[in-house]
């Protein structure tokens, strides 16, 4: 990080006029980046909730519960994020009528749904894998203690899963955070889109390069700490 800052400082010193223009665009770009953070946090939150339910459904004894979950996971794990964002943006309504009133359904929220769908499919797989990794003997002993199947899941199995799934979950979070840049292609005003706006307004080759590099560095600053933390957790949880 220090090296990046040093390079940036050196470059700014060599190109003062360019640096001034770039600094002028910082608020506009920052607004865009806030959108990336909002989209990624919302998408992973919704995705985790739905994924948890789907993961448990995948292991249900009843076929009619299991089959739809398995099909959903297979399709959306293999679907490109970009295509899902296109699908949600262009095919979902812009507002929803709920209880007589209309609620706006803005583009960024559609991008959230577009990313939450694949996120939930991946999380379902993570959850399924984690539940399966817990020895079946625990289910049996919990049963003999009078726990129902759902209560066993809630109080005994899932708490253990949480620890095991954390690194995989964080990897997914980083991947969804990076996926939020795809929303620029459907016109959501996030960072990459803001950079194109800035580049169109300034119309200078060197500025164009500088602004896209700024986008690259911003995402790195967001995702790298997540990835470092993941590695530390992986090492700590490694058996």
């Amino acid at each position, binding site marked *: 990080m220090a090296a990046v800052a040093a390079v940036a400082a050196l470059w700014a010193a060599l190109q003062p006029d360019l640096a001034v223009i770039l600094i002028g665009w910082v608020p506009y770009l920052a607004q865009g980046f806030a959108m990336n953070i909002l989209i990624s946090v919302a998408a992973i939150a919704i995705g985790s909730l739905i994924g948890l339910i789907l993961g448990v459904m995948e292991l249900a004894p009843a076929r009619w519960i299991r089959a739809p979950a398995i099909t959903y996971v297979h399709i959306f794990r293999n679907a490109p994020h970009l295509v899902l964002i*296109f699908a949600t943006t262009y095919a979902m309504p812009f507002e929803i009528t709920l209880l007589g009133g209309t609620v706006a359904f803005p583009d960024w929220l559609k991008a959230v749904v577009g990313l939450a769908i694949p996120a939930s499919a991946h999380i379902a797989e993570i959850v399924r894998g984690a539940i399966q990794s817990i020895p079946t003997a625990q289910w049996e002993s919990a049963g003999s203690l009078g726990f129902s199947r759902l209560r066993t899941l809630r109080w005994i199995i899932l708490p253990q899963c949480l620890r095991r799934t954390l690194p995989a979950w964080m990897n997914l979070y980083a991947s969804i955070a990076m996926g939020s840049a795809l929303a620029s*292609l459907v016109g959501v005003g996030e960072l*990459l889109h803001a950079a194109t706006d800035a580049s169109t307004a300034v119309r200078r080759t060197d500025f*164009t390069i500088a602004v896209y590099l700024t986008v*690259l560095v911003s995402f790195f600053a967001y995702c790298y700490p997540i990835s470092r933390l993941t590695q530390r957790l992986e090492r700590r949880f490694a058996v």
Partner: protein
Amino acid sequence: MADPLLLDLVKTAKSYGINVGFLTSPHERDIWLEGFRTTLTLVATMIPVSLAAGMALAAALTARQRWLALPARVFVELTRNTPTLVQLSCAFLGLNMLISQSLGGAGQNPFGAFFWVVLVVGLHGAAYHAEALRAGIEAVPDTTLEAARALGFNRLEILRWVELPLALRIALPTIVNNLVTLVKLTTVGSAVAVGEITYASIMIWTQRDNVVELMVVILVFFSAINLVVSQIGLWLERRLAVPGLGVRS
């Protein structure tokens, strides 16, 4: 010009509310069919490129020489922690323009959009492969390495004949997962006018009103490709299995 069977099909579909009228326009049909071909070509080019680059990166990551390991580590971290689309924008809109300028005019630039997509997405995949292989190389038991050294293998020979083959087997499930991601990432080509299936569909649906129809086809197409990729992966895993190595429950 269009054969009657096709016209019939388009009409029947329309009566069910499905708009596939573009099939009667020769150029749109060509763009669309070319889209399937281009996606498959991208996948077929990118998989070997990412694997070869991934192995080279893994070798560099585990090298004892700092001048080799450090740049490899920086590259891997940078690639893994920035969005592919942003990398592609930087490469295609930025780097590509600089290359054109330094070669004295845009006409001299030999690199096309296809090249940049293969490079950026391929190296993105390679960075993930490299991490998986590195973990695999580090998982090779010390006793095996000692045995190899005792047999007179040098460092590079050990890497080539002992560590990589074993690491490949350990890392194979992760690598197959990475390849599935790679297949999905080919869609970013649409942002730089590489004529893959998403691009082809955009070109058609912006002139017509059939987003949903084309979207369903894309989703089914990618499901099919990834089903094939993961099946080949499973087959390889069984095929290459070494008794006692990387046993998974």
